[in-house]
């Protein structure tokens, strides 16, 4: 939990004032002097720094906007070195200057992942998106009872929606009772996140409102991982628990008769399906932030979506009520405006980078383009930062519950998976596909199984009884050819080349792996229908995600076992004990407090479990990932996860 004392702020303030005598951006003379929150301003010296952007100071002076101290919560979130990103990753964090427009580009209709990540505000946060050091974000602070069941949260008093309305526990109550509690909107009740042990079948937590700014959530069993679950897990945001009740009540039949919504319903060819109107058009969840329909919707994000001057672009202007300040007490964000232009294809996003039309980009970059980026850096006035990818880029999944008896017998045998792992020459893949910018999978495969050893692979396969070979030297089972069909959706540019290389390499041990590229949607559907025999996709990671066992990927590792677990045994097939052990490990980890010693121990146990059971075969780990940043953009991470740097958009600033 973070509490900044008034004294320390004043000290910082004094130091800064001493450091820069003549601040460049002095506020207009009649703008009210604003200083550190909850502290009385000393008589403002002539050189006092502006604590808000010039455009906001003007609005305050014109009387169209309340003064800064009325817009900030009593205890604002203070961004400084090591707060959003660790000091190791941003060694030169410095308070910035206001101004500038951040240009970006997006290729999917109405959706910019880069802008979404930059805007996202979870309920709690930890530096580098990690599990260590969780602290308040939208919520001011939290307390956890000793048995990890009762979570008491304190909201930021004075926090306001971007339209100036206060954020209170009424917004939490509305979300809980009128959204999650509504059977039309949530037929199966609250999402798994709010169920004991992050288990879809677990008991829902109970909400108790204490007063306007305090509430508790209570689970029926220990659920310390809940903290992580409202931090960044699965890219959730504050809308998981806080929604602007004052706006949404107009579209909810508990507060507004359906007759009053008739015009909107009819305009959408609906009769009385208010829930469709409510979820498709009226409610904006955190990931809807880039949608055109959400322009003007109250948010808590650093920038808010505004109507663009011309079609085909997204424009976000600073949120005057944003709750974060820097160490000097200046309200964030530094950058005035974020503009993202819609292009017609993902390649064109990169074209704009080369032309210097993009100031920040993460999602649409690719390792394969690094030479091209480097070549154009000077001309395009940007730099390429090689950061870490937040997932294990490519993994070979063998669906162990695919509908084929022979296949099941073989793929469920650990020796088969070990043999394939030995037969893959990872170094060749690292050198040719990843330009050497990736590492051997020491965490998720381990040295023992990751070594390239054709003899060991052959021995293991012989041991399995796959000794018979056909005319081409390919192994057979029970006199029949044995062939694996790998279908991938080319979700990332490295999946296809890696799959092709693996297919070539497996020939050396007599395994026939056919690679087929299919449409991503068909891939999805075949996956859900248990029709994929094998696939290539990314997987869990050792870092920011807390899916250390890879149970989230079990959809691809063994679809029917996953289904059994998801539906609490109603559908699918009962998994064997080793898989149940994994789910038990997950529950234990989710019960412990995220980031605690107990949690960290269970994390290591989870990795050990993966190495021992090799549910899927990780090809490489720690793949590097290029991130594009304008040459004069400051407070950009030099390392760590690209997505974490993307997430910390409010601290970025342009050096003029």
């Amino acid at each position, binding site marked *: 939990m973070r509490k900044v004392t008034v004294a320390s702020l004043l000290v910082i303030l004094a130091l800064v004032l001493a450091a820069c005598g003549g601040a460049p951006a002095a506020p207009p003379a009649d703008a009210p002097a604003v200083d550190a929150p909850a502290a009385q301003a000393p008589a403002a010296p002539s050189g006092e720094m502006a604590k808000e952007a010039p455009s906001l100071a003007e609005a305050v002076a014109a009387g169209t906007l309340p003064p800064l101290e009325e817009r900030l919560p009593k205890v604002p979130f203070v961004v400084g070195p090591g707060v959003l990103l660790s000091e190791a990753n941003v060694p030169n964090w410095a308070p910035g200057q206001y101004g500038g427009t951040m*240009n970006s580009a997006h290729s*999917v*209709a*109405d*959706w910019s*992942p880069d802008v*979404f990540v930059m805007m996202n505000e979870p309920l709690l946060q930890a530096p580098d998106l990690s599990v260590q050091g969780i602290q308040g974000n939208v919520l001011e602070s939290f307390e956890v009872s000793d048995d990890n069941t009762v979570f008491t949260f304190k909201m930021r008093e004075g926090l306001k929606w971007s339209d100036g309305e206060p954020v209170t526990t009424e917004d939490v109550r509305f979300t809980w009772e009128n959204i999650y509690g509504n059977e039309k909107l949530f*037929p*199966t009740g609250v*999402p*798994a996140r709010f169920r004991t042990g992050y288990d*879809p079948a677990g008991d829902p937590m109970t909400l108790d409102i204490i007063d306007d700014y305090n509430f508790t959530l209570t689970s029926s069993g220990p659920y310390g991982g809940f903290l992580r679950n409202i931090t960044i*897990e*699965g*890219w*959730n945001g504050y809308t998981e628990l806080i929604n602007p009740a004052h706006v949404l009540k107009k579209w909810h039949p508990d507060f507004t008769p359906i007759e009053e919504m008739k015009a909107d319903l009819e*305009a*959408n*060819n609906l009769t009385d399906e208010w*829930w*469709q109107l409510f*979820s*498709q058009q009226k409610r904006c969840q955190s*990931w*809807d932030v880039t*949608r*055109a*329909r959400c322009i003007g919707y109250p948010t808590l994000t650093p920038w808010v979506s505004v109507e*663009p*001057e*011309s*079609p*085909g*672009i997204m*424009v976000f202007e600073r949120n005057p009520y944003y709750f974060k300040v820097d160490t000097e007490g200046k309200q964030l964000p530094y950058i005035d405006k974020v*503009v993202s*232009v*819609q292009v*017609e*294809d993902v390649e*064109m996003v990169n*074209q*704009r980078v080369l*032309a210097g*039309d993009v100031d920040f980009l993460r*999602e649409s970059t690719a390792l394969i383009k690094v030479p091209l980026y480097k070549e154009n850096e000077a*001309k395009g006035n940007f730099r390429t930062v090689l950061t870490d990818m937040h*997932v294990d880029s490519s993994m070979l999944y063998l669906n162990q519950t695919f509908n084929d008896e022979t296949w099941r017998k073989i793929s469920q045998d650990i020796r088969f998976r070990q043999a394939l792992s030995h037969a893959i020459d990872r170094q060749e893949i690292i050198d040719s596909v990843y330009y050497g910018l990736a590492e051997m999978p020491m965490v998720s495969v381990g040295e023992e199984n990751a070594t390239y050893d054709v003899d060991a692979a052959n021995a293991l396969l012989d041991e399995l009884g796959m000794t018979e070979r056909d005319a081409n030297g390919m192994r057979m089972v029970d006199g029949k050819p044995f062939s694996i069909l790998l279908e991938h959706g080319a*979700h990332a540019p490295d999946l296809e080349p890696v799959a092709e290389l693996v297919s070539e390499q497996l020939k050396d041990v007599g395994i026939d792996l056919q690679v087929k590229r299919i*449409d*991503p*949607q*068909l891939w*999805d*559907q075949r996956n*859900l229908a248990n029709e994929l025999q094998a696939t290539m996709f990314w997987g869990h990671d050792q870092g920011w995600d807390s899916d250390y066992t890879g149970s*989230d990927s079990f959809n691809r590792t063994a679809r029917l076992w996953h*289904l059994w677990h*998801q539906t609490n045994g109603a559908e699918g097939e009962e998994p064997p004990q080793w898989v149940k052990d994994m789910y038990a490990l997950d529950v234990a980890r989710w019960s412990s407090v995220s980031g605690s010693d107990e949690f960290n121990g269970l994390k290591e146990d989870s990795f050990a479990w993966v190495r021992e059971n090799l549910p899927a075969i990780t090809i490489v780990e720690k793949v590097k990932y290029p991130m594009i940043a304008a040459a004069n953009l400051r407070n950009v991470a030099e390392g760590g996860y690209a*997505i974490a740097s993307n997430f910390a958009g409010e601290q970025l600033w342009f050096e003029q």
Partner: protein
Amino acid sequence: MLVYIIRRLLMLIPILLLVSFIAFFVIELPPGDWVTTYVSQLRTSGIQMSDQEAQRLTALYGFDQPTYVRYFKWISGIVTRGDFGWSFQWGKPVGEVIAERLPITLAISLMALVFSWLVAIPIGIYSATHQYSLIDYLATFIGFIGLATPGFLLAMILAWGANQFLGFSALGLYSKEFLDAPWSFAKAMNMLQHMILPLVIIGMASAGSTIRVLRGNLLDELKKQYVVTARAKGMSETRLLLKYPVRLALNPVFSTIGWLLPAIFAGEVLISIVLSVPSIGPLLLRSTLAQDMYLTGSIVLILSALTIFGSLISDIYLAWADPRIRYGGLSK
């Protein structure tokens, strides 16, 4: 004639209904629906979404209803209120999405058309009258290049060249400093600069074919007896050329106006994608891929209507312009 036009217009209604019906059902044929696209889009960006959550969304978006129910709701909205439905992908009414892109699409298509005529008609006439001259060979060469080079390739090469040698980023409609600027003279000029490349590339392709068609037809006409007769009677060469053979040779060019209507509406898909021109062609491609069915259905419907309407216009034009067709039709 009038009865004929009215009959043709009435025929539009059943044809369009049939087209809308087929379009809607064909969009539904591939696996999944818009919600599956949406869910996989969120999942690939790292947002976790369980199967149950996906099912809940399917119901919330009304995709749990049978296709014919959704079709009926959509088509009745169009017929009764002129409302093309909701685009899930863009989170706005379909009408608005199309209206946003229509001006730029029409501007580029029409200007490219005029550009191609301005270039092609003089060159075509010159080529035919000066057959096997140096300029004819040159025009033929350029014409074949225009015909044979895929527009998107040309677009890539020229966009690269503009960036490499002129330092000008030809992508999109404006430079980045004008993206969110209010309309001004500078912004308009900037937009015009960005429109040159798409205009030239789109115009090139049709100019190539127009040159070839015009040259071929004109050569045929020039050998005809009435030309020789007129020349023998001492008619001035220019007047002779423009009054008779060229007019006839242009018939095939103008008779394609009908087919041009849908093309003008949709814009050139590949070139628009390469140059990031926000026209309707890429919109259709994108919505089809994402199974944003009301948007796809509406665009297909509009395109079909324009195609049918366009061929009607062509027929009427030909009958009006060419007495042989007009009288030939009446004598039967």
